[in-house]
């Protein structure tokens, strides 16, 4: 039924439909035609989403790692090719991007009333940039998309943002740029090492290429100290994007100032590029450095979980609270990834999707109420459950998804992540799980202050409940949260092959001793390691 997907360059199509839409808007529509621009742009996003859905069905779960491959020559003298392809991880992220795209466009209808033409052009360009990042299999192409995506986001925050939009936009841009420049250095180092070599390192001597799987193949040949430096370069680039503690402070500013749709895309998709980078590049290409820096990565992740949650508790602005909760949730993702085992990795990757859905929904929800009252201050609300029952219900469901209530998506991710972390080192799981308690505390406290109690502010007495358009962009997320929560198996299934690939890349370079664990936790790690080998040889004792 979905064979036709294999016959056409489906990925390019998905990637460039928004670009084509942007060009059409630019050429044929005028500033005044707000109504038709927003309908056309939303239509383009919807078409794009509908195009990406068949990928889910046509993807062969047991087939090649990268599927829907497209390959064309580009800048041959430098070994740069136009290479597209997706594995299970990228597939989920592509679907997330196209879905959140539609919802973000829908949510913009009433939120944006100045310079609509440019706004929708930038939003469409952003879609193309993000999709390209997840589809590119050539490092150079990847870098191009990575940078392309930065520009529309910069303008989205800088033009349609809040009172401190310029500060936030510049901070976002510069911070990310610093990261990407270092990442570029890392890419070039890999490029030269694969070829003639660089500095005192004798290269592998292959033909020049930026083809990513090529670097996966030579992972074992890269000397440990070179791996170390490249890992650090990549780390800065990705950690800023994630964002990991202590590189996170651009996030609250960007979120608070960005328009609703910008926050949705930012939290839903952009942050995932950082974690995606770790999964796609750092782990499989630099396994030795991964093991070496593992304790530090885990330390930063756990600090991020607890720190983000505590700081979220102290927030008075709803968007800022959600922004800090993202720091905490992305800490979970990183903890899962660096547990470096099956449950941890698949849980971490699934949690990327989960966070995109539930935090995306949270930003949409905050946007709903912001449009009505033009404030995001928690103290301005209280008791609005009576006025907006449907809104309160959906907000509650998403809150529960965010704090990891079973039957909703967040639990599936957190549970598998912590299972993975526990079998690596029980203390990691213990400290990570503190985030679950704190998560409930800050989210429910916010919920109580906004929705419960007597209505103290007279302005809240006239609030209108959700309209159909708002329901239309919230309900898909609610349904997905339930789907992943109740039946996550298809998602784990599609991640099986890529997770196995990463483990095969990483596992052979695992240090013999348990020295990778921080000294304080060594005894626990050792006893678990001992247990590990016992079960592996003889099953459950």
């Amino acid at each position, binding site marked *: 039924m979905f064979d036709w997907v294999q016959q056409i360059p489906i990925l390019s199509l998905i990637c460039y439909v928004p670009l084509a839409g942007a060009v059409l808007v630019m050429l044929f529509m005028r500033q005044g035609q707000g109504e038709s621009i927003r309908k056309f742009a939303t239509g383009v996003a919807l078409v794009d989403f509908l195009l990406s859905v068949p990928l889910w069905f046509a993807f062969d779960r047991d087939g090649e790692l990268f599927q829907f491959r497209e390959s064309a020559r580009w800048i041959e003298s430098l070994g740069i090719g136009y290479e597209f392809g997706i594995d299970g991880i990228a597939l989920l992220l592509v679907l997330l991007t196209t879905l959140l795209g539609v919802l973000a466009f829908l949510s913009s209808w009433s939120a944006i009333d100045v310079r609509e033409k440019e706004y929708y052009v930038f939003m469409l360009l952003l879609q193309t940039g993000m999709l390209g990042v997840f589809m590119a299999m050539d490092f150079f192409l990847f870098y191009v998309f990575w940078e392309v995506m930065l520009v529309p986001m910069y303008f989205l925050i800088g033009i349609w943002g809040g009172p401190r939009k310029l500060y936030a936009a510049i*901070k976002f841009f510069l911070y990310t740029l610093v990261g990407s420049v270092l990442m570029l250095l890392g890419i070039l180092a890999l490029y030269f090492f694969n070829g003639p070599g660089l500095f005192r390192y004798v290269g592998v001597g292959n033909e020049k290429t930026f083809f990513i799987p090529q670097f996966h193949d030579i992972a074992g040949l890269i000397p440990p100290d070179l791996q170390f430096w490249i890992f650090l370069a990549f780390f800065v680039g990705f950690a800023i994007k994630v964002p990991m503690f202590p590189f996170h402070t651009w996030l609250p500013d960007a979120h608070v100032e960005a328009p609703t749709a910008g926050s949705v895309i930012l939290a839903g998709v952009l942050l995932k590029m950082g974690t995606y980078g770790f999964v796609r590049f750092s782990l499989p290409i630099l396994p030795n450095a991964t093991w070496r820096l593992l304790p530090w990565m885990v330390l930063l992740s756990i600090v991020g979980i607890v720190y983000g949650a505590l700081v979220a*508790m102290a927030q008075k602005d709803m968007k800022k609270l959600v922004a800090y909760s993202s720091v905490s949730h992305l800490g979970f993702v990183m903890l899962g990834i660096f547990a470096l085992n099956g449950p941890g990795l698949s849980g971490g990757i699934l949690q990327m999707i989960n966070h995109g859905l539930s935090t995306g929904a949270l930003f949409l929800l905050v946007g709903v109420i912001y449009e009505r009252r033009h404030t995001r201050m928690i103290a301005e609300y209280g008791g609005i459950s009576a006025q907006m029952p449907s809104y309160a219900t959906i907000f509650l469901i998403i809150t529960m998804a965010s704090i990891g209530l*079973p039957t909703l998506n967040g639990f599936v991710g957190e549970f598998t992540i912590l299972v993975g972390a*526990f*079998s690596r080192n029980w203390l990691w799981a213990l400290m990570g799980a503190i985030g679950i308690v704190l998560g409930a505390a800050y989210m*429910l406290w916010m919920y109580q202050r906004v929705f419960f109690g007597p209505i103290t502010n007279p302005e809240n007495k006239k609030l209108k409940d959700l309209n159909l358009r708002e329901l239309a962009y919230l309900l898909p997320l609610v349904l997905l949260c339930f789907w992943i929560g109740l039946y996550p*198996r298809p998602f784990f299934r599609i991640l099986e092959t890529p997770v196995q690939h990463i483990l095969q890349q990483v596992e052979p370079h695992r240090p013999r001793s348990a020295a990778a664990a921080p000294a304080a936790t060594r005894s626990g790690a050792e*006893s678990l390691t001992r*247990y590990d080998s016992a079960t592996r040889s003889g099953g459950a004792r």
Partner: protein
Amino acid sequence: MRALDLLWLVPLLPLAGSALNALLGPRVARPLTTAVALGAPGLSLAISLMAVWTYATTVFPLPFEQVLYAWTTGELSIDVAFLLDPLSSVMVVVVTLVGFLIHVYSVGYMGDDSGYQRYFSYLNLFMGAMLLLVLGNNFLVMFVGWEGVGLCSYLLIGYYYEEEFPPYAGRKAFIVNRIGDFAFLVGLFALVARFGTLDYGEVFAAVASDPHGVEEPYLLGLSFAGFVTLCLFIGAIGKSAQLPLYVWLPDAMAGPTPVSALIHAATMVTAGVYMVVRTNVLYQLAPGTSALVATVGAVTALFAATIAFAQTDIKKVLAYSTVSQLGYMFLGAGVGAYSAAIFHLGTHAFFKALLFLGSGSVIHAMSGEQDMRRMGGLKKALPVTFATFAIATVAISGIPPLAGFFSKDQILAGAWGEHKVLWAIGLVTAGLTACYMFRALLMTFYGRFRGTDEVRSHLHESPTVMTLPLVVLAVGSALAGLIGIPKLGTLDINWFGHFLAPVVAPVGHAGEHGHHASLGLELLLMGVSVAAAVGGIWMAWRTYGGERGLAGGEAWAIRFPTAHRILTNKYYVDEIYDATVIKGTWSAARGLFRFDAGFIDGFLVNGSRHVTVAVSLLSGFFDKYVIDGVVNLSGWVMRACSRLFRSLQTGLVSQYALVVAVGMLVLTGFYLVVRLG
């Protein structure tokens, strides 16, 4: 086996009912809401009764498992599946039966509430979650239900969300529960890490096949069994409101009264006891944790019973009574009397549900008044409520042959075999329980009416839809004990104990655990516990009986002012938590936020911006005055030179001729002097 095949519908029907009522919303007619709200748990009750009947009448019943679908894949393989064995049979009957009666009662109690449909949607959800918890065949499904009842308690305690306190109480319940859940989760991780599965059957079989394996040192100086059971028990402490995590339960009274009945009797708080008994295989191999369970249970039982004395709110008395009775159940589970613990859970479900619903009927009649100091003499106005409430009070006090006597006696017998101090605490608690329960009974129904005349004029017995459940529960409270009459010498008609035996069979060397006291000792222990109860009742009668009213109680308060103050303030536990845990977390949150805004963002990030700006200003200065300065300097030098030379270019031929002539003269002179000189 048709009824068994429908097992999956038992938890799903209430969940579906909940969803349906939530989607229909308040727009539909009330009878339709009622039909859905009662139909779903009613069907659930019917199916579970049939299924359990089928199961219990099978000659050699094997645990019945039903897999719905696979939840995950890969290394961690977990199914969504249900299990019917003796333990879950007992639980499912208690939950559906008591739960259904509470639903029926609610139709009357919540009849004129504007959030009728919301209430029933939550109530069905609550029951569905509890049924998931007890019917799951693995720890994950149990945890889903476990968190589910936590959510429902949050929603239902905070049901009156337009007021200040209920939402706070709901949140407190959820978060305190989460602290326990945190430990529960860690226990589950340990199980997964070792066995790669969370299926009860597989885990317990693996443990039973090699009991010594789980007794080897694992973490923190504990054995594997010790570590896991400790984690699970902390979870149970949170859910079942034991010391030190009981603080949410008394505040949970903020919800509608039938909800209190549901939380305190059939669902939620019993989950911890169920979980400990479900994992008894591990607890048997962890004597340290078991001792802890027994101790925490005994201390909580006594502690909560003393607080109950100083309460004047009728629901608060019952709340602390629940905490105390749950302590009893943990005492039983801790000393290895697992079936006695479950038996007490079942009988307690009947009489505690009855007490709460009865108090609801009183509150209903008293126009919302909950303070017993303004009640009194209600037995005439509320005859059915009084009669049933009295039966429940006698039952909880442990007077034979009502239900509470048999179950309590078996726990005390177990405690006697384990440690005499535990038994003594249990005995004192039994006396105290009888005393404070009769205090409540006397203050409410006897003496003179102490409320306002207006309230008095509205006094009325509740409608049949409310009194009928009371009568059914009263019958249960009176007779339920008879299915578990303890073994006396050779007379062994403890049907309940035999039914549950396969689930709580001894594992490994723990085999010598079961004590069988002699007939004489058994009868003596029974006599002592009945005497304690009678003593308690006598004390209550001396203080509150007849026409004494409040005077008797006030005399005690005057005689022991310090004790009274401490008890009224519930040992200041809430205050201690506020001052330490809550304040600590809150200051950490604010401190870290200041650190984030001040140091990381302010100093490092914006600092680097300022440094960059400063450096760029400096470079600008350098560029302008040094680099550009050198450039300008060279230009200036050129210009100065050119000015000098320009002055020579006058354009006057005579002047040039003069210079040429002078030059020639100088050169000739130089030549002559140097060459020839």
